[in-house]
């Protein structure tokens, strides 16, 4: 087979894909008709489109590229990855239904606007925007870089990875700018279906290459029999008091039960992010939320991860040539058309998340920050135009960072999910716990984000740059940065809510609280189930992703005795894998219980009238706006000078 054949098939598939994307962005642009529905698709995205969008963006390219590599490198020592399907949907079950109704009531279309109206907090607005930027530039940018390099290598380096990256970003920019949120919805549905089908297909291929499940299990048994890799079949205890990656050694490895808990918390970060809120607030109704979270996310995506992603990763674990890149290379040699289709499907999955991230970050920058601060008179058309320009600039930054600053890109990517999960406390305050006060929500997010930064490479590299050496490395005590953040976040919220006035809410917040209490009270049978649901949720969290994971090391067989022929794995697969499958199934039941029986996500038929704020006179802000522009320019110049000075001083 000549080298040009795979390249030819990739080109053919890419052209078809690009044509499909542009077709749907054109349809979206025609439906938008003018700028008014560009930001949120006129709040009329069908529920099934929203569900697919959420599923596709949640999985993105991370699981097929990063998740499989984690299993290839670390085996079954991080079972938090295996429960990602259930973890991805838990915040959805908890928040989405109420968030949609609150959005309808307040007539807002983004998480930042919601925080501004409910908490009157500009800090939360900026924090949300920062998270969106991390997703748009860092998280998606890193995936785009990885897939561009992969495409270039598999195409025989006929086209460089930079040009491939440019073409992918160009297409992305094109459809986001043309069709806005509606195009992201329409194209995203196709992208999500392609991505999920490709994962199923690649998993099947991994099984075929490794010679079937029996051969794969034999390979795993051989690994379990080797003392060097045997430790990778289990978690290394509940917690290790190590100074963290890059600073200290671990006993066995760093994959403790608490590390898995933190990793699982990070996965939840997508659904608390402004990207997920954007999807929810753009949907026509909330009637599909329970089904999408239970059956699509927990059952299907969860099954796909615990079976498909694990199969792909395990193949690479058994034989390093069968890692994801190797698998695709082999597929390309055997059938170039399938490899091309699978690669384009992975690109589609990454574009789905990147497109959504770009739109949300740009909307926040222009509509939520720039307009109210600097140019209140900006009309709708000009706002859309500025946002489109911003999309282009951010896409360009992501593209340039892929080549010029890969280390920073990687540091940003590592921040996106752990930072995003810190937004769960203000969301809890809006949707469930009215006792969370404004200062508590702000401090919680602030302390949570600071803890994340200080336990991730980004934070300690910045501090190291100015001469402050932290005594710990990444993820000290084998606790993931998301968990460190969540700990300080919750602690701050509890303490500050206790010492601040819990009744001092703004008018809008009080209206929302009354609206939720009036319409979402539990039915009698659900009230009976409440203690059962809480107990089940806590037990599941403890055993599936918490300290109880140590039981998974030996519950379904011993790993250390598998050297003997046949081994003693009860179900013929590693004990931790069987444990994860069991708790995935129980997780689906738990999600169903919460979503339907506890009425957390199922449809509630109520008529939502818009909140009418008291009429207020709008003051002329032009002087203040001019002053702010002057201040901002001065601030940017000062910060730039300080950075140059620091670089000059410290090298």
């Amino acid at each position, binding site marked *: 087979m000549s080298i040009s054949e795979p390249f030819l098939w990739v080109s053919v598939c890419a052209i078809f894909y690009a044509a499909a994307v542009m077709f749907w962005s054109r349809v979206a642009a025609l439906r938008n008709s003018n700028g008014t529905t560009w930001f949120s698709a006129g709040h009329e995205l069908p529920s099934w489109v929203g569900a697919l969008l959420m599923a596709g963006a949640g999985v993105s390219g991370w699981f097929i590229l990063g998740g499989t590599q984690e299993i290839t490198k670390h085996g079954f020592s991080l079972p938090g990855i295996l429960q990602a399907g259930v973890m991805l949907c838990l915040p959805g079950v908890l928040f989405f239904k109420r968030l949609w109704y609150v959005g309808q009531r307040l007539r807002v279309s983004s998480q930042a606007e919601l925080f501004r109206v409910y908490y009157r907090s500009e800090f939360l607005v900026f924090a949300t925007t920062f998270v969106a930027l991390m997703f748009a530039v860092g998280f998606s940018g890193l995936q785009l870089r990885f897939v561009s390099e992969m495409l270039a290598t598999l195409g025989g380096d006929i086209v460089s990875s930079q040009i491939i990256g440019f073409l992918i970003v160009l297409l992305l920019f094109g459809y986001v700018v043309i069709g806005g949120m509606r195009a992201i919805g329409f194209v995203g549905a196709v992208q999500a279906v392609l991505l999920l089908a490709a994962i199923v297909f690649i998993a099947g291929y991994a099984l075929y290459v490794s010679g079937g499940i029996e051969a794969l299990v034999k390979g795993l048994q051989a690994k379990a029999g080797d003392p060097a890799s045997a430790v990778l079949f289990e978690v290394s205890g509940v917690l290790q008091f190590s100074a963290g990656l890059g600073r200290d050694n671990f006993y066995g490895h760093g994959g403790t039960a608490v590390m898995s808990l933190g990793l699982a918390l990070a996965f939840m970060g997508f659904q608390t992010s402004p990207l997920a809120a954007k999807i929810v607030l753009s949907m026509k109704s909330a009637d599909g939320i329970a089904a999408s979270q239970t059956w699509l996310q927990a059952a299907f995506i969860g099954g796909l991860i615990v079976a498909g992603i694990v199969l792909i990763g395990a193949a690479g674990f058994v034989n390093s040539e069968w890692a994801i890149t190797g698998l695709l290379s082999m597929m390309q040699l055997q059938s170039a*058309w399938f490899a091309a289709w699978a690669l384009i499907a992975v690109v589609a999955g990454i574009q789905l998340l990147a497109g959504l991230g770009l739109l949300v970050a740009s909307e926040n920058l222009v509509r939520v920050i720039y307009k109210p601060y600097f140019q209140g008179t900006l009309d709708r058309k000009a706002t859309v135009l500025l946002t489109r320009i911003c999309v282009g600039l951010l896409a360009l930054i992501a593209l340039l960072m892929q080549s010029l600053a890969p280390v920073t890109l990687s540091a940003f990517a590592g921040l996106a999910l752990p930072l995003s999960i810190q937004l769960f406390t203000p969301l809890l305050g809006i949707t469930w716990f009215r006792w969370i006060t404004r200062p508590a929500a702000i401090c919680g997010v602030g302390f949570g984000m600071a803890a994340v930064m200080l336990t991730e490479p980004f934070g300690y590299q910045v501090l190291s740059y100015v001469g402050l050496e932290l005594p710990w490395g990444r993820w000290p005590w084998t606790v993931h940065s998301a968990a460190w953040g969540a700990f300080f976040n919750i602690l701050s919220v509890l303490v500050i809510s206790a010492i601040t006035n819990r009744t001092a809410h703004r008018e809008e917040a009080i209206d929302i609280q009354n609206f939720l209490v009036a319409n979402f009270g539990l039915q009698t049978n659900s009230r009976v189930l409440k203690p059962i649901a809480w107990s089940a949720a806590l037990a599941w969290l403890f055993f599936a992703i918490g300290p109880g994971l140590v039981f998974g090391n030996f519950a379904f067989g011993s790993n250390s005795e598998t050297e003997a022929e046949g081994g003693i794995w009860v179900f013929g697969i590693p004990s931790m894998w069987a444990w994860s499958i069991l708790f995935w199934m129980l997780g689906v039941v738990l999600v169903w219980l919460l979503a339907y029986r506890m009425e957390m996500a199922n449809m509630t038929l109520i008529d939502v009238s818009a909140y009418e704020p008291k009429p207020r006179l709008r003051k002329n802000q032009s002087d203040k706006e001019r002053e702010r522009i002057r201040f901002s320019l001065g601030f940017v110049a000062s910060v730039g000078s300080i950075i140059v000075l620091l670089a000059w001083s410290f090298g």
Partner: protein
Amino acid sequence: MRDDRKLLVFCIWSVLGFLGMGFILEGLSRDSYLVGLLGVCTIVAAFIGHIIVNYLNKQGFEPGETALGLGLFGLICLLFVVGWIVSETSQTDYYIAITLFAVLSIGMIAYLSSRYGMRQAFSRFHIKPTSDEGNEK
């Protein structure tokens, strides 16, 4: 609603259509009838999915879809005939192609006759000019 239906149909064909085509190509290149048959079955599954979506939306195939389908069917026939003339075609390749054409043809007849009845199914192709059009001419 119309966009919903189109999008669903598009999703179905972007996955099952391409997989079906891929398996047929795989069957032809590996000279394996079973793999080719898997491709034919996948294409049939895509058609079934399309018909279910049509049923849920209470409508039939759109004129554009019919034209695209018939056009692709003709193109595949042409490619097969040209391939047969130009290069050597194995017995398996021949069987795979015949299976595909047979299944698609029988499927189309079955669909039309079940949806419109035998007589009206024929009328879908044999469209007489209306009396008004005749008078105008």
